């Protein structure tokens, strides 16, 4: 296995982490990672330098977008969500809260936030992954953080907070 393969291999654990945070479903996440790897290996001869890691994040992000779009096109019966207010206590509460908060984000905002805070990509790298200017990445981040804060503070879009 050449350097390319080694770089790809070294990124797999991080790709799984990112995919799980994106999908919040470990099976779907691993499917996404597998599709990403198949595509990356297939396209190796087209890869002329650059950062393999960013490239893999790009492929995974785009595959996930395609997945969400095809889901959106297909009418499905979605399971009833637990729409209760964020849990106030318990060891798992924090994790569940942040998961639900992430779920309320627009996809591009969620991608940007996760790439920065979970994957440690720079703004510039995220801009490359998302194919947008850095300023757009920053406004996505800002909006994501505002939205999460609103959610965690107990506000929900359809329901005003009663004091």
């Amino acid at each position, binding site marked *: *296995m050449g350097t390319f*393969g080694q770089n*790809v*291999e070294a990124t*797999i*654990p*991080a790709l*799984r*982490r990112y995919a*799980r*945070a994106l999908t919040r479903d470990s099976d779907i996440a*691993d*499917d996404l*990672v*597998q*599709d990403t*790897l*198949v*595509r*990356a*290996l*297939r*396209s190796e*001869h*087209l*890869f*002329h330098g*650059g950062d393999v890691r960013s*490239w893999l994040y*790009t*492929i*995974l*992000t*785009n*595959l996930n977008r*395609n997945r969400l779009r095809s889901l959106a096109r297909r009418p499905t019966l979605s399971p009833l969500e637990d729409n209760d207010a964020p849990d106030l206590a318990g060891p798992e509460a*924090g*994790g569940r*809260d*942040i*998961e639900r*908060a*992430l779920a309320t984000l627009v996809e591009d905002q969620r991608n940007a*936030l*996760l790439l*920065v*805070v*979970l994957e440690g990509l*720079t*703004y510039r790298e995220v801009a*490359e992954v998302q*194919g947008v200017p850095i300023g757009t990445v*920053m406004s996505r*981040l*800002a909006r994501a*953080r505002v939205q*999460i*804060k609103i959610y*965690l503070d107990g506000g929900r879009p359809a329901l005003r907070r009663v004091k």
Partner: protein
Amino acid sequence: MIDRDSPVTEEELHAFIDGELPADRKVAVTAWLAGHPEHAALVAAWRAQAEAIRARFGADGNEPVPARLQLDQVMRQGRSSGGSWATFAAAAVVALIVGGGAGWMARGASAQAPTSFDAFTTDALDAHKLYVVEVRHPVEVAGDERAHMTQWLSKRLGSDLRIPDLQSIGLKLIGGRLLPGPTGAAAFYMYEGPSGERFTIYCSKAGVPESAFRFKEGERFAAFYWVDDKIAYAVSGPADRERLEAVTKSVYEQVDKTGARKL
């Protein structure tokens, strides 16, 4: 959220917690926050969000990689659950057969049962052979009507097509036409280089979601073939692998919809 006359912008606050600020601004922002408790609370809340995200998902990156995601497995089998790889493997046997002087027939895979790929490559190569020599009527719609052609062919194929712009590698779009393909309509575009050499792209809906690239070279012509996002493509041109690969790369980057475009 930040006062208009404030020396620190909200963008800087984000950059501050994401480690994107230059050292001198970091010092300035830290000092500024000391005098602005509301913003300091906001920054603390954003930091707590990031910590919660890392606490929830960070450990997922430390798990051992399951067998199906090991690279050698991926290389050997591809996606075992999806079934697409098995279909691809069958298709790979057929590959792309470009007859040179012997004529444009897909004979190389004669030992194999005919597949949709046989039909596709035969059609693509027949079209290339037939139209590249045409001087007066190589295309139905001229290249300067790209928008119209895109709309028309997309409608007939039932898929959003992109007609690649290959000007950057010296190829001018002559135009395109609608052709019969193995599974319905096929779109066919022709490009011409500075010395009159012609390249064609033939694409049509495919029965499989994707495949690897295939290359085949004949005496006079060569072609790259692949399936991406359920559309099969054949890029054909003179038998000069390096040149054809450059053309194919350019085409692939422009039609790919799922990410490998950013190479």
